[in-house]
């Protein structure tokens, strides 16, 4: 009986893994076509066209801040210097207990103003709204609200206070590339189908050089943990999301950087303050809204890296982040279970959700069980080591090859790193990742799933980060 089960499991895992690999190959081809198309049909001349056109639509940049006193000034200045002809910056002080608000008031000469704030989306109450007396900061609005405990709650308040038809959601501690708005609005404008959201690549800020909130030099993280994440992010954005974007199956637009159609996101109910995966939750509800109203939509991704964020620098903080992501994934499938395999929701119901269920939610469980079965078979001396070797090398070489390919895709898109040695430093982690980081990730996912079903409340908490290399030596202490 055990032997039969073991045989079945081995064959099942082989075909499961091969199916996963085939899906990667398909995504690789789609993402390559997407990148080539993007590079071919877009140029920097388009930025100039948008900058000078009276028809360019306005964008509200929405950035929540919680206890960001140390870096808030440099970060807000960075947002204010974005390159775009018509935009506003809305900073939401989510009940910070440090001097975030005081610093903003002093630095930007803010004054409390009567503001017709309409709470179209749910959030904790707004206490005051500030505008600057200095015309140099006229595009800045600061919303001071009662702490809601989540970024989602604060983002909703920012969306309520926004004036333009599109909003860019980001974290105040993220460093945005100056032309981000110009690059991200283009897919919305150059489409006859309604584009409800646009995403771009996020990368690790660790080890990059930043001066007064402006990114000066991009470098791969020196620490191994953030460097693993750099490669992981590149794979997630350049391979997965770019690939899915080609067939309009993008599963989510990251909370760190996403441009959204305000009307549709308000009609879909905005961010859910109780969700652990608020970004995927919002996209799911926006898509559900469009499907329920028989409206065609697109969600696009651009391959450019537009946002740099500091990733967890050590295992302890990574654990907290990843278990939260895992809880979020379980929650998404429970909350939106009606979408799974539902023809009404087209791509979302028939491709995105089933794929995420089979290859993202269940994958850590299958792999975890696989390791247990493997250990049992070793103990019983039932392992054919030669054949096992082939299978392990098969998965290992494939993973390394895919990671190398993603690095190539990144090089095709733009050469962010100055030297080949920096590229090679990233390549080194492609070899190490399957041996260490991947195993840790599985463990974190399993712990996240267990904690979702066993714990009743979750603390969001804050984490201390190590800070980026800045000429002014400013430390960054964002929240997870």
């Amino acid at each position, binding site marked *: 009986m055990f032997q039969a089960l073991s045989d079945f499991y081995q064959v099942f895992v082989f075909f499961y893994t091969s199916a996963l690999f085939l899906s990667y190959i398909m995504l690789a081809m789609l993402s390559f076509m997407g990148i*080539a198309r993007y590079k*071919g*049909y877009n140029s920097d*001349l388009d930025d100039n066209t*948008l900058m000078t056109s009276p028809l360019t639509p306005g964008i509200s940049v929405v950035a929540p801040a919680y206890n960001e006193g140390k870096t808030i000034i440099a970060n807000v200045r960075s947002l204010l210097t974005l390159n775009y002809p018509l935009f506003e910056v809305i900073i939401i002080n989510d009940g910070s207990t440090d001097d975030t608000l005081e610093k903003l008031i002093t630095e930007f000469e803010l004054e409390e103003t009567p503001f017709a704030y309409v709470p179209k989306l749910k959030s904790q109450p707004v206490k005051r709204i500030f505008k600057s007396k200095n015309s140099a900061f006229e595009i800045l609005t600061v919303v001071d609200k009662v702490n809601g405990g989540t970024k989602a709650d604060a983002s909703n308040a920012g969306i309520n206070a926004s004036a333009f038809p599109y909003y860019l959601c980001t974290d105040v501690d993220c460093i945005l590339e100056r032309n981000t708005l110009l690059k991200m609005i283009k897919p919305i404008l150059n489409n006859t189908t309604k584009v409800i959201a646009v995403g771009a690549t996020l990368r690790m800020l660790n080890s990059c050089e930043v001066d007064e909130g402006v990114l000066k030099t991009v470098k791969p993280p020196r620490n191994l943990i953030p460097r693993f994440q750099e490669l992981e992010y590149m794979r997630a954005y350049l391979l997965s999301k770019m690939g899915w974007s080609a067939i309009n199956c993008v599963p989510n637009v990251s909370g760190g950087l996403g441009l959204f159609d305000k009307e549709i996101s308000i009609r879909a109910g905005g961010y859910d303050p109780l969700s652990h995966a608020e970004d995927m939750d919002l996209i799911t509800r926006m898509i559900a809204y469009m499907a329920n109203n028989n409206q065609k939509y697109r969600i696009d991704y651009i391959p450019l890296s537009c946002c740099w964020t500091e990733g967890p620098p050590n295992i302890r903080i990574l654990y907290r982040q990843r278990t939260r992501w895992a809880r979020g994934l379980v929650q998404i499938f429970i909350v939106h279970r009606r979408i799974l395999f539902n023809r009404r929701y087209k791509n979302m119901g028939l491709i995105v959700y089933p794929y995420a269920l089979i290859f993202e939610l269940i994958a850590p469980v299958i792999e975890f069980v696989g390791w247990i079965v493997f250990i049992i078979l070793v103990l019983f001396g039932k392992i054919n080591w030669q054949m096992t070797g082939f299978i392990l090398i098969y998965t290992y070489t*494939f993973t390394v090859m895919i990671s190398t390919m993603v690095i190539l895709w990144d090089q095709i898109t733009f*050469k962010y790193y100055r030297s080949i040695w920096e590229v090679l430093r990233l*390549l080194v982690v492609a070899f190490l990742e399957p041996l260490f980081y991947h195993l840790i990730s599985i463990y974190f996912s399993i712990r996240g799933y267990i904690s979702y079903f066993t714990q009743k409340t979750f603390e969001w908490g804050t984490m201390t980060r190590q800070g980026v290399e800045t000429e002014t030596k400013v430390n960054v202490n964002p929240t997870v």
Partner: protein
Amino acid sequence: MVTLSILDQLLTYYAKVYSYPFIIQVCILFIIGCIVLFFSFLAIIAYSRYRHFRLKAKELRLLPPLDELILKHLLDEKGEEFGVIQQEFTQCMGTLNNENLDIITDRLIFYKNNFDLNVNDAFYRIIEAVGIEKHIEKKLQFTSSFSKMKGIQALSNLAITAAESNIFPFTYSRNLQVRKEARTSYLRLSKNDPYKFLDEAKERFNAWDQINLLKQLLGMDKQNLPSFSKWIAYSENESIVEFAIRMTSYFQQRDAIPVLTQQLNSPKHQLRAEAIKALGELEAKETESTLITIYNNQPDNCQMEIIRAIGKFKTGLSLDFIVNAWEKSHTVETQKVAAEALLNYNEEGQSVFNSLKIKTLGIDQTVLQHVENPLIKFK
């Protein structure tokens, strides 16, 4: 002998692999494929970086003297002979091969777009002497659709009017992006029938097409602009009608007021809203009573545009209408528009605004304060 023994070994391996289970055979095939791909990717990464940095280094070396040379010829009022110009560029850049011609083209586009240099003849002399037009022509004939599109863009950015015949075949390209780019550029470069494709286009214009078209129109002599009212009246393509409506207001074509008024009967509310907005921008005071008459039957977006238009007319006859719109508005957005119209209407409007501020409470009062607050730039 050595070759034979390697071959023998390979055959032995093959026989061994053939004896393995099917799954393992697949694995081995994948492993070989992955290793080959891995090394290929590495080679491509190395080569692409080498090419990129070689080009960057070349640009860094050549751009300062090239800029100097371009500026010299652009600012040279008498104009050198073609042969002299060509010789100087060859001296500066070396052979005028494709790579160097691309660098020169990019720099010329940069100067054309970023500096208000009224020196079209000087640009043309450089283009002719260096052979940029022929270089782009070659690109249009033998390259991918991406390069074709960029070639068409370059012709349009450099305003090479002689290129009309080169672009024309692409105006019917099967590739949508190339076709759109060619048609937009044709509008700027054609001397015969530049607006041909506004008459013919069946596909929907998206926002980017409109932005691109406006860019071309802005690059043209204002006196040569057509009357956009004909497309408002006759085009069956809704997106072209929408674009034409916007252009009438942007270029202040008051002769379009009658056709814009006709658009108030359009079954599409987006077109009605655009037409009302244009009437407001054109200060078509004669349509005030018509707009007030239709107000109650319109959706929110049209109602807001009507209030804005009436506010812009400032005839002094419609204060009651604006106050009424304020009182009956059921969304904060409409309230804001009505309050702003009231505030900017005339002195009487301002005093009504001030009295409303005293009378109202809660969100109504906040809306009035919001609208008059000079610190709030985007109301």
